[in-house]
């Protein structure tokens, strides 16, 4: 069985009068390398078949979806949805999910081969259709890992915004969805919102022919998950305030708004499904100020299966007031690192927004500062992407926006802004 451990990195010492406590919580799922029983996994592949997918993209999307089908282990329950301004379950014919075997894979791939690109784009409806498939499956197999892949190349143009919002809210919590944008006509913020709400990732696929390998990798990763529906359960004292709960690695994700109250002092934050992997969370709490020497528990963090209440691991974020400046002013290197990574993501997103709004001054300032942080923190990939948008004079540090920027480079930078690098080396505590 998968073992979970929690480690907390923080400097618990606060100067007298200070009230803000930060901790980086590292959750590691480990144990004997194994995959869960195939029958306990469910996969839905959602392919954008709107008219813009023609001109070759649809051919690559077909290959990608077929590769994903090939990657499903025997017994995994699956379906394929074709999405335009409506959503159609093109496999299996009967509507529900069916187990993967040689016959069902062949039938699914035949159905995928017949996909045509026409019609509009209404992603919320695709997600609602997938959610209904998963809900029906969950009623029979409550412990199944539920995962979807969504591929799109365009904007959500054929669904009114309120309907999209309602559909997205309907799907939330029912499955994890990894999203892929292909080409340059999709909107990063829109797809990021879907992935974020459904606890999945978003990535750009620059060339349609890269889709096949990417779909295969995503399906393999989904097959490696063994525990579904894990929540971070955070308790803070009655007089304290929980400022935020953010995932900071492998990608940034603000979970603060996802709280489900357990009791007056405790809330659950969903984290989706887990395989053998490590994720890190940044938690900040404001506590009432205490006397020198006093120690308090500022937060108790547990990893739980909300359905059963089973506690898988736990750790403390502590606060102790000190009059020793050497103790209380020390910043924990992990907290500093991830604070920097959050700042980097904000600078990139704000900078790109300002650039699109024509605010050259703000865009230059934000992206120039981001370039410096990326380099110092070792985000080499992000630094390279920033170099395609701005020029920085190495001698003076002066930044200047490039006049001509490849749209694909801008999308890649925006998409990858939330991906963080881990510290190269564990800091000495």
């Amino acid at each position, binding site marked *: 069985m998968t*073992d979970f*451990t*929690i*480690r907390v990195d923080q400097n618990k010492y606060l100067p007298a009068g200070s009230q803000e406590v930060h901790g980086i919580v590292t959750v*590691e799922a480990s144990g004997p390398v194994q995959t869960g029983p195939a029958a306990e996994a469910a996969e839905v592949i959602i392919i954008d078949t709107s008219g813009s997918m023609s001109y070759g993209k649809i051919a690559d999307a077909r290959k990608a979806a077929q590769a994903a089908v090939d990657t499903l282990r025997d017994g995994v329950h699956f379906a394929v949805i074709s999405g335009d301004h409506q959503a159609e379950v093109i496999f299996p014919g009967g509507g529900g999910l069916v187990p993967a075997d040689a016959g069902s894979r062949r039938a699914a791939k035949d159905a995928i081969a017949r996909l045509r690109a026409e019609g509009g784009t209404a992603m919320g409806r695709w997600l609602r259709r997938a959610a209904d498939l998963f809900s029906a499956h969950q009623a029979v197999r409550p412990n199944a890992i539920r995962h979807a892949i969504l591929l799109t190349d365009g904007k959500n143009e054929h669904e009114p915004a309120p309907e999209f919002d309602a559909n997205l809210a309907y799907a939330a919590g029912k499955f994890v969805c990894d999203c892929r944008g292909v080409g340059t006509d999709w909107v990063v913020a829109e797809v990021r919102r879907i992935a974020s709400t459904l606890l999945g990732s978003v990535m750009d696929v620059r060339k349609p022919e890269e889709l096949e390998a990417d779909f295969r990798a995503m399906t393999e990763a989904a097959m490696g998950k063994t525990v579904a529906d894990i929540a971070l359960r955070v308790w*803070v*004292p*009655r*007089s*304290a305030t929980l400022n935020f709960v953010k995932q900071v690695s492998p990608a940034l994700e603000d979970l603060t708004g996802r709280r489900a109250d357990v009791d007056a*002092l405790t809330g659950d934050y969903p984290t989706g499904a887990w395989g053998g992997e490590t994720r890190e969370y940044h938690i900040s709490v404001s*506590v009432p100020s*205490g006397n*020198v*020497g*006093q*120690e*308090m*528990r*500022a937060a*108790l963090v547990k990893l739980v299966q909300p359905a059963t209440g089973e506690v898988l*691991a736990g*750790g*403390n974020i502590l606060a*102790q007031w*000190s*009059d*020793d400046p050497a103790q209380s002013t020390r910043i924990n290197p992990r907290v500093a690192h991830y604070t920097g990574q959050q700042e980097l993501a904000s600078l990139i997103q704000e900078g790109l927004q300002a650039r699109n709004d024509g605010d050259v001054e703000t865009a230059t300032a934000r992206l120039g500062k981001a370039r410096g942080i990326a380099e110092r923190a070792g985000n080499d990939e992000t630094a390279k992407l920033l170099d395609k948008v701005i020029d920085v004079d190495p001698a003076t540090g002066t930044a200047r926006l490039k006049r001509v920027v490849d749209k694909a480079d801008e999308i890649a930078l925006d998409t990858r802004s939330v991906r963080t690098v881990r510290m190269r080396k564990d800091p000495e*505590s």
Partner: protein
Amino acid sequence: MSGACPVCGTGVMAGEAFCENCGHDLSSVPPAPCTACGAAAVGADGYCENCGMLQPTGRDHVETEAAGAAAVSDRGLRHSRNEDAMALLSLGPAESPAGQGAVVAVVCDGVSSSPRPDEASQAAADVAAAAIVKRLADGDDPEAATREGVRLAADAVASAARPGEDSPACTYVSAVVSGRHVTVGWVGDSRAYWLGAQSALLTEDDATPGTHMLTAWLGADAGEVVPRVRTFTTDGPGAVLLCSDGLWNYYPEPEALAATALGDTPLTAARRLVRMAIEAGGHDNITVAVIPFGQGDRTQTTVAFPKERSD
């Protein structure tokens, strides 16, 4: 026997409703409320489940005496809990095959940056003192008994490690005082002093000089623990002093310690030393054990320090 009456300390059996000695109702021991907010919701780990405050433990100030020796441990002023621990046991002449009684003292200082240092130090002190006494009673010499005490204490601390966290850790110093001999054993920077006509520091800190960076400790991450063990011979009069760095950070000089500690009962001396450390700032937990030693004329005192390390 399953425990002791909380009022009078008499041993009571499991399932007994009342103490046979004082009549205390054993079924109704209310949990102590939180000292910060008054809520009756203090968890087993000592944090209030309402306001989060860590509760003071029974270790904030502890005093103990055995066979004329005394030890005092105090939280000090700046730490939220007492991470030091001590144990003091004695062995009567009839109990030891050598026919000489012995006093066994152990002082351990939990490493603050490790998890649950207070549990580590208490386990180490209790396990070591009990093991040394048992080995002496079985006929081992004090050095062999001391090594066995350290070995078992190291095992106890190492086995307290939990997956996913750093290892609990503590320092260790012990003394076996028997007849004209003093055997000290140590790991880390808790110290033993001889206080008398030729007062001296008996231990050498396992720490980088001028810092508090330990080079040896008890804990799962410590590797093989090899204590340093030495035996001294003396006629007295004087005292053996064991202490954590909460005392010697302020008063490292043997002569100053001797001037304060000698000429009074061990308990009074130990209390006075603790109070001096608190008045000097009390920045750390403070633990002091004083074992009086030797008879005779002060001017005739001889102390023979070993030339070679006995490790």
